[in-house]
């Protein structure tokens, strides 16, 4: 896969330049990255397992029906609901979105999923309320949901 090779080349270049600039700082960075990876490793594994099972059980037709091009508004709503409720770290969420993309899920649906995941937090609402107050937190989440749907619409029209 060409795309993947570019990423790996970019990583190699950054590591090389960083090493030339400061060897110990680079090593510190590599260690930080490794510890982040270690912390998320079980979640990555679980993601691959769950997605493999899910995509094995659900046929391509059903998936296309639920989230695909012909699903229209339904797919976007499902994506918005899942994205608002789920608590998936970004490093795990993007591979998931990538797998769905390969199965023909349109960009608009993925954009809504990814954006609500980051902007709207139903599960984390109690935490947010403590900092911002109930009304402010509620308004922020509602506006963010609307914003995410808008982003999805624009991307659906452009891509």
């Amino acid at each position, binding site marked *: 896969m060409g795309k993947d090779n570019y990423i790996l080349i970019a990583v190699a270049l950054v590591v090389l330049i960083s090493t030339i600039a400061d060897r110990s700082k680079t090593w510190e960075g590599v260690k930080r990255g490794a510890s982040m990876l270690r912390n998320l490793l079980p979640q990555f594994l679980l993601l691959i397992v769950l997605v493999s099972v899910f995509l094995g059980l659900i046929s391509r037709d059903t998936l296309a029906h639920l989230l695909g091009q012909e699903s229209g508004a339904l797919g976007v709503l499902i994506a918005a609901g899942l994205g608002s409720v789920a608590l998936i770290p970004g490093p795990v969420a993007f591979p998931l979105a990538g797998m769905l993309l390969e199965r023909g899920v349109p960009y608009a649906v993925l954009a809504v999923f990814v954006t609500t995941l980051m*902007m709207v937090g139903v599960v984390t609402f109690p935490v947010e309320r403590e900092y911002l107050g109930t009304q402010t937190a509620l308004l922020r989440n509602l506006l963010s949901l609307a914003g995410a749907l808008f982003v999805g619409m624009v991307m659906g029209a452009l891509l």
Partner: protein
Amino acid sequence: MKREIRVRTEYSIAAAFGLFILLALFLKWPVGQDMARNFYEFSLRMILLVPGIFILIGILDVWVPKEAIQKHIGEDSGVKGMLYVVLLAFFQGGPLYVAFPVAHLLWKKGCSVRNIFVYIGSFSALKVPMVMFEISFLGWRFSLLRAAVSLPVFLLVAEFMARFVRRRGFAMSRM
């Protein structure tokens, strides 16, 4: 403790899946074979990409002087302060609920109400560590376009939030 239990559950599910797959391959059960193929394809791609991206994020984390950026977000920092807030959010990692303690910290340091919401908004619109994952798995065009569209949208949301909150006399709790 809680994390340990969660991690153990996650590994147990993965192990159960492994046993199921072995059984399915042995019995030549089509659905199981399908899942095994999915698992193989997905993990191959992850093993190839994910460690590299994490190394990139780690190195970035070491080089970007976050404390230095934070110093520039004073009371009357104006547009420049806003730019710094956006910059700060770009290089911050972690999920949304991590943004609130940081926003609180900025508030205590005299960051304006608008910049608080600019921070929260740009935090989720565009984060460099996340963008690397986004580019790797969804492509350049998707990532650039999503950033270009969502940043103005969420700056607008921030402006709206700031006005709403100023009218009501805002004070971040947990002082």
